[in-house]
């Protein structure tokens, strides 16, 4: 660490930072508004960044914290791996997940800003493409090895002298189920990096190269200093926690996730060497995903206003065993590794809760809830593929109930509107509502999960890759567990229940019901204010029976207005098979 900033830099650095963040924000807006697939344009599953000539992150814009560590890992690895020429007007494409993405769906585009024949900086746009080929529509299914998960694109030059390489594009589009969306999304990514390069060039023209280079160094140094100052507020020592994934989808054997976190003056070290070895299944994750989990858990404990750049990453050390579930190597499949990232995140949060209880939240729904389906669209005769993730409950907090139906922690993707989805895809929804009684009880209860019932116009292949069917979200400090995830075919009839990871063929007209987990409770349920219980009953969040049995609060008022208006709407009555 070098000395403090010169006083004049302390006065002007904020201005430089505004300029850089403005560029990545502009890149994000361009990508979002021009993209074709719902997952990018509506659900914001993408990330835009600027890197300096040494492949250090200097500014980022994203809505998904699961991208906190991906590009920071991915981009240096792509640049180190790519051995072709690099000229002005070029851009490199890559989805080779083990270099740092979450899965093959994360397609990364890197464009250099060339000055005097040397790269001065890079503009990068990574987006989750809805399908990259492979064994299941949406490319996120149960697979034994990566080769089943889709087209693997090593770093290749897709743009040369500002012109798309038609043969690379043809190779890509021929291998995916939704070529029109893939091409539109790739063009939106190209638009995004071109905006980034243009704005960065203007910044250099305005300030001069030396000043920009010095500004970058100062900004990273400043961020590092602030990050060190922020971790100074954490208690010194080692904390740890262990949790398990339900299974790997191929066998019933739970997957151990364990984190030992050591906080020192200048570093926070995440020792993950106790995690299980990688499995012949899609649940493995990469160094990039693992860094995201650790970085997120740490950021939640410290100054939320910290810039996100290389200066922040410098305070984080992640120790893993190559070939483990949190640092998998080829040919490990990684399609559903985000659930491992999610579990690792909450395991780290549980460790922090032991020393910072006032800040902590109990377990959330604890799974990504990857849903994908595809088939021939009866409306058009063309193949279609669709991907989304569903919200669930957030854990209770000190003084605050958990949030109902929300994306927790590293995940923050929006829902796709019912009307838009029904207009564009051969699917109809029967219900999209909260699941009463799905909360973990506690002095501060968890949030409710949600229910989304699908019925298809034609035959489809339907995949769920998730977690928390077997091991429910747990409470904190005496709070109770939440209802786990439930997947039911024909919920009003036979109600066949499915495990956390499955791919099935559904016939047109068949109903599949997704009921997501609630959040765990915080604190002893006996300390809950009875008035809050009564309010939950009045709002139909908790049944009178559960109020009586779990919260020991007798509610003698008649059922709530809403319950009377929609008799039989309580989904829990339908799943007792």
């Amino acid at each position, binding site marked *: 660490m070098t000395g403090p900033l010169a*006083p004049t830099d302390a006065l002007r650095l904020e201005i430089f930072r505004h300029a850089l963040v403005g560029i990545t924000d502009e890149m994000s*807006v361009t990508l979002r508004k021009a993209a074709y697939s719902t997952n990018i344009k509506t659900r914001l599953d993408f990330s835009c960044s600027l890197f300096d000539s040494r492949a250090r992150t200097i500014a980022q814009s994203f809505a998904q914290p699961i991208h906190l560590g991906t590009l920071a890992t991915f981009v240096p690895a792509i640049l180190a791996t790519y051995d072709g020429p690099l000229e002005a007007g070029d851009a490199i494409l890559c989805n080779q997940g083990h270099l740092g993405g979450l899965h093959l769906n994360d397609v990364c585009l890197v464009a250099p800003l060339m000055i005097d024949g040397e790269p001065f900086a890079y503009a990068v746009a990574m987006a989750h493409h809805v399908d990259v080929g492979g064994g299941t529509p949406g490319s996120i299914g149960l697979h034994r090895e990566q080769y089943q998960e889709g087209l693997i694109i090593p770093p290749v030059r897709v743009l040369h002298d500002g012109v798309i390489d038609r043969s690379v594009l043809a190779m890509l589009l021929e291998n995916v189920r939704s070529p029109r969306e893939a091409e539109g999304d790739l063009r939106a990514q190209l638009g995004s990096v071109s905006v980034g390069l243009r704005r960065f060039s203007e910044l250099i023209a305005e300030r001069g190269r030396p000043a920009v280079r010095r500004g970058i160094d100062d900004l990273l140094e400043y961020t590092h200093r602030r990050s060190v100052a922020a971790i100074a507020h954490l208690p010194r020592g080692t904390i740890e926690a262990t949790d398990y994934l339900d299974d790997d989808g191929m066998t019933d054997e739970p997957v151990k996730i364990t984190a030992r976190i050591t906080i020192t003056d200048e570093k926070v070290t995440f020792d993950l060497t106790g995690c299980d070895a990688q499995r012949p299944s899609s649940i493995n994750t990469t160094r990039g995903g693992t860094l995201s989990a650790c970085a997120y858990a740490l950021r939640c404990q410290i100054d939320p206003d910290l810039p996100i750049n290389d200066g922040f990453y410098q305070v984080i050390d992640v120790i893993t065993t190559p070939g483990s579930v949190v640092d998998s190597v080829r040919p490990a499949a990684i399609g559903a590794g985000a659930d491992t990232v999610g579990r690792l995140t909450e395991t780290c949060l549980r460790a922090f809760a032991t020393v910072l209880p006032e800040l902590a939240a109990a377990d959330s729904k604890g799974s990504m809830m990857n849903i994908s389906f595809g088939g021939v669209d009866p409306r058009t005769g063309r193949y279609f593929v669709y991907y989304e993730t569903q919200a669930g409950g957030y854990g209770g907090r000190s003084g605050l109930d958990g949030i109902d139906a929300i994306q927790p922690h590293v995940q923050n993707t929006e829902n796709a509107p019912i009307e838009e989805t029904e207009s564009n895809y051969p699917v*109809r929804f029967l219900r999209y509502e909260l699941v009463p009684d799905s909360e973990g009880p506690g002095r501060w209860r968890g949030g409710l999960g949600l229910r989304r019932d699908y019925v298809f116009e034609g035959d489809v292949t339907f995949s769920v890759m998730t977690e928390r069917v077997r091991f429910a979200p747990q409470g904190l400090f005496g709070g109770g567990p939440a209802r786990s995830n439930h997947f039911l075919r024909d919920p009003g009839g036979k109600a066949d229940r499915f495990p956390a990871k499955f791919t099935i063929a559904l016939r047109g007209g068949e109903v599949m019901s997704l009921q997501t987990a609630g959040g765990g409770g915080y604190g002893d349920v006996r300390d809950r204010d009875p008035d809050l219980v009564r309010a939950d009953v009045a709002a139909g969040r908790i049944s009178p029976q559960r109020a009586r049995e779990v919260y020991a609060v007798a509610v003698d008022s008649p059922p709530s207005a809403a319950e009377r208006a929609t008799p039989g709407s309580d989904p829990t009555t339908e799943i007792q098979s």
Partner: protein
Amino acid sequence: MSGFRVAIDIGGTFTDVVLIDTESGERWTGKVLSTPHDPSEGFFRALDIALELAGVQIGACRSVLHATTVATNAVLTRTGGPAALLATDGFRDVLEIARQIRHDLYDLRTTKPLPLVAREWAFGIRERLRYDGSVLLPLDEDSVREAAAQIRASGIRSVAVCLLHAYVNPTHEQRVAEILRDEIPGVSISLSSVIAPEMREYPRASTTVANAYVGPVVGSYIASIEAGLRDRGASSGLWLMKSNGGLATAATALERPVEIIESGPAAGLAAASHYAALVGSRDVVTLDMGGTTAKVGMIDDGESLQTTAWEIGSSAGSGSAVAHGSGLPILGSVMDLVEIGAGGGSIAWIDPGGILRVGPRSAGADPGPACYGRGGTEPTVTDANVFLGRIGATSMAGGRLSLDGAAAAAAIARLADRLGVSSLDAAVAILDVADSAMIQATRLMTIRRGLDPHGYDLIAFGGAGPLHACRQATALGFRSVIIPPDAGVLSAFGLLASAPRVDHRVAFRRRIDVVDPAEVSATLDRIEAEAIARLPPEARGGDLRRDRAADIRYVGQSWDLRVAIPGGVFDAAAAARLRADFDAAHERTHGYAAPTALVEMVHLAISVAAPRPGIADRAVADRAVADRAVADRAVADRAVAAPVGAAPVGAAAGGDEGQRTARPSGSRPAFVDDGILLVEVPVYRFNGLREGDTLAGPALIDGDDSTTFVAGPFDCRVGPHRVLHLVAR
């Protein structure tokens, strides 16, 4: 037509009034403290003062115009309603689920915005439409009656109805409304197919529910204002400013109260449009910098830029263009503003990494900046301006509020000590950081949309806008800077410059290559007739401005772009032209076009507006304003007026006739950009300037409401109506 018009704008701190004699142009202005517990109290105090000063009776006023925050506050403080929601069975949690996202990524204690209808009052109705509007499950009328019975028993009298796909086929919603009217006497009903007939159920439900939620509050507020006006013998009607910058009669506003949620900012933009027209500038960026925030807006080709989707209650200046979800979405035309937490009261501080930051925390009015001498000790942007001589010790409020320069200097010095720099460097840096945040906001407004600031003028207003305008112009390359003479009461003035206007948009999803042009024409004609029917009766005749447009996207995209449809018959050639215009707009906005890709229309939109009234503007003034320290006293603004048109539009930038070099009234030491010391800078009194005067920067112009800083490289010319026009040499 002779008579008086009076305009009242209620803001967070002050209620401003402007009374105008429409024939002579004579004007009286006043400022009283707002009365948030009962805004009508401040309204009538302001009105009475203006009437008294002018010596006229309310009966002589032919219209009373009003911009109000009553609807906004009802939502922000959750004091509207109560309201109920009827939704398709299985989907009544549309408000609870919302977008399922967190607006704050790293806060474990985050929350979702609280819905305006509690879950117990959201009912499922058995019915179902398909995506194309065809009926899958007919309406079960008993399920409506069951809900109605409970609503009736509860006392709730405002009901929102939002059924799936009702924007394609409104018949189920219409039948629900009939049943509700039968079952619940006196019920007020908001249908999603009427309020916001667009695809995507959450924003449509949110907007419809907001309409139902603010209805009762707006209704009783308007009733109390109208009763007060009647008691005073008023014969004129009450007009309200809508979010889209158009006026509505009280009666039409009550039909769609959600449309007046952004009443206040719209009035400021309307005034800026007025002055832009006066000086002949059609393309303008507006900078409204007040005490807490700065708002950047845009006037493009004479019309203030609007957006059709925004959030109420979202945190200003969240810093990321992709973060949203902190507020409640509202569909409908509203002034498109980028708002950031940088105002005169924004506090400068040193963050844990040791760098200087400004805002978003503001010293507000209490204690206010250190220089107000009311106990504030933290340095603010205003303190930096005082320390650097940009604001004189006696420049505020026409000299009646004297500033404590020593307190400002002490606050700056404390900050400078901690940074290890001189006070001068610290003060200059505070302005630089605040300016850079505003430059970023302005950049979002212009460059990000593919608009080049070199083709735009910057109109700056609000208490602090005229001090910071030159820096924006230099950084972004605006053609010129325009400072209107009424910066401090601009919103109230904007009411007088506004006219009735209705924006109407309907879903119309058709591929442009196969659309039947006759269907487009017929739909445009139909929605134009619907829009005109929503204008107040008094505004329907006459020469209406009619703007038609389509929202268009490439097939597969979700985000559309608005493209104007020229008047005249819409035929195949017009469809082809529209497609080409869309490709060009996409190229401009998103950096590429795909001329061979399929294109679809998503909405058709129409805007109908009555002509804006001409306002006689004062040519010279001997003006006084209310002392901010004793703000409840209003002072007459007795101005001799020249009617609009006496000076040719565009004369500000025109020839040399009548040009005089203005004489400064004095000088004070002030910092000029790129200087190293304070230097003596000439100071002009705004009230001593006359049309045709010129002066060269660096210079300071002390006005009653604000000080204008003319930076070194700028020349300033006093245009018609004493609009200041600053152009870089």
